C-alpha cells in the first residue's frame, strides 16, 4: 500500500453514521411493535431483540462520533457540498434516547 492510496481524515463526513443509526432507529420501532402485539411471548422477544439492537447501534455510533469529533477539530468543517451532513449526529442521540 503506497502513501497516495491512504484515505485522509479530511474526507470523512458524518454520513459514516448512517448505517449504524439504522440499528438504533429499529430498536425504537421494535418497542412500538411490542406494544401493539397481543401475544406476550412475542412482545417479550421483540423487546429483548430491541435491547440487543440498541446495544449494537449506540456504542458503534459513539465510536464514529469520536472519529468525527477528531475530524472536526483537525480539519474544521466539511466542504460546502456535504455541509448538511452535520445534522446527522442528532440521529443516533435522539433515537437512542427514545429507545
Amino acid at each position, binding site marked *: 500500500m503506497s502513501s497516495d*492510496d*491512504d*484515505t485522509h481524515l479530511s*474526507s470523512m*463526513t458524518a*454520513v*459514516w453514521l*448512517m*448505517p*449504524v*443509526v*439504522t*440499528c438504533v*432507529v*429499529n430498536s*425504537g*420501532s*421494535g418497542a*412500538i*411493535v411490542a*406494544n*401493539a*402485539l*397481543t401475544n406476550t411471548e*412475542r412482545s417479550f422477544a*421483540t423487546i429483548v*431483540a430491541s435491547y440487543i*439492537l440498541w446495544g*449494537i*447501534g449506540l456504542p*458503534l455510533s459513539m465510536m464514529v462520533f469520536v472519529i468525527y469529533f477528531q475530524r472536526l477539530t483537525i480539519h474544521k468543517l466539511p466542504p460546502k457540498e*456535504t455541509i448538511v451532513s452535520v445534522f446527522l449526529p442528532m440521529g443516533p442521540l435522539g433515537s437512542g434516547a427514545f429507545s
Partner: protein
Amino acid sequence: MGTGIVSILLHILPYNGYWLQWIAKIIFAVNVFLFVAGCILSIIRYSLYPHTFKAVISHPVQSMFLGTFPMGLSTIIDMICFVCVPAWGPWAEHLAWALWIIDTVISIVCALSLPFLLYVTPLKKYL
C-alpha cells in the same frame, strides 16, 4: 423518512383534533407510496444495470445511503402499529411484526457490513 416522521408526530400530538388524525393518515399513505415507488425504482435500476450496484457499494459516501432504506421502513412499521392495528385487526399486527423482523435483519447487515466495506475497498477504485 421525513413524511413518515411527520405522520407519526401528527398522530401522537397531545392536544389533538380529529382532523389532525386524518392529515396524519393521508401523510402516512403518501409515505408508503413514496417508499414503494423508491423500492420499485431501485429494483428496476439494479436489475437493468447490475454494475451500478457494485459501483454504489464501492463508493465511500453513496454506499452509506443504503442505510436509509431500513430507516424509512421503520417509520412505516410505526404507523402501521399506530393506525392499522386498531383499525384492521390482528392480521395487521402479524404484518407489522414480520416487517419489523425483516427490517431488523437488513439493518444489522447494513450496520456491520457497510463500515467493513469502507475499510476494505481500495481508494483507486472510486477515484
